[in-house]
């Protein structure tokens, strides 16, 4: 069990399908909780054709790693993997996959839930929804604004 991010953690943005089998178990763990977010066939009652994701890639990766660091600090977990797809995704394709391993299930459930909730609020990734009659950027969530800049002595 590790309270800090390790090189066994995994944070990636990718344009090809996510290979969930690559997220492996480790002998010291007793539980893995996974979150598989995939493309729904409708949005607010409109039939979705497909989605396109784009990211501010270096910042998105940095924020994903921060989430990993945070859940290592908050929960008794072993490893975390956070993978997000970019580009065009068809209905049913996995857009985000999170796996958290831990010695015991409660920490893995809590950490996985925290990770996906935080990702949806803080990682700079955007989704455009394509419908039969047009396309819209998903409403999304505004990341929490940081406090004002410290005043520089003049």
């Amino acid at each position: 069990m590790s309270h800090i991010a390790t090189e066994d953690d995994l944070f990636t943005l990718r344009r090809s399908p996510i290979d969930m089998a690559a997220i492996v178990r480790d002998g010291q763990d007793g539980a893995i909780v996974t979150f598989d977010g995939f493309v729904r066939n409708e949005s607010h009652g409109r039939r979705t054709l497909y989605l396109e994701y784009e990211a501010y890639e270096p910042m998105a990766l940095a924020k994903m790693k921060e989430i990993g660091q945070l859940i290592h600090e908050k929960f008794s977990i072993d490893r975390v993997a956070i993978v997000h797809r970019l580009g065009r995704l068809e209905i049913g394709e996995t857009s985000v996959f999170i796996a958290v391993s831990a010695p015991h299930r409660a920490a893995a459930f809590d950490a996985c839930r925290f990770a996906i909730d935080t990702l949806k609020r803080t990682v700079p990734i955007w989704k455009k929804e394509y419908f039969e009659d047009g396309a819209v950027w998903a409403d999304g969530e505004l990341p929490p604004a940081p406090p004002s800049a410290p005043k520089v002595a003049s």
Partner: protein
Amino acid sequence: MPPVLPNLRVNVLFFGRVRELTGIAEESVELPNGTTLAGLFDRYAARFPKLAAFRASLVPSRNEEFASWDTPLTEDDTIAFLPPVSGG
């Protein structure tokens, strides 16, 4: 004569709906020293009037960190005006 302020150069990125609105993904701009994130945004709002209405729903970033609007810019900063995020 008023003192001439030196200029600074920053890189500006746009994503999602603001990339589509401005038609710009990335550009380098020269600004007077002392310009803040808000000041830089105001320049873009003057250039793209529709952008002004978006300000309340944008969070700026400076060098890949969320930043407050009153943050002063420094040479070679990478700035982005980020729309509400919708990953997942």
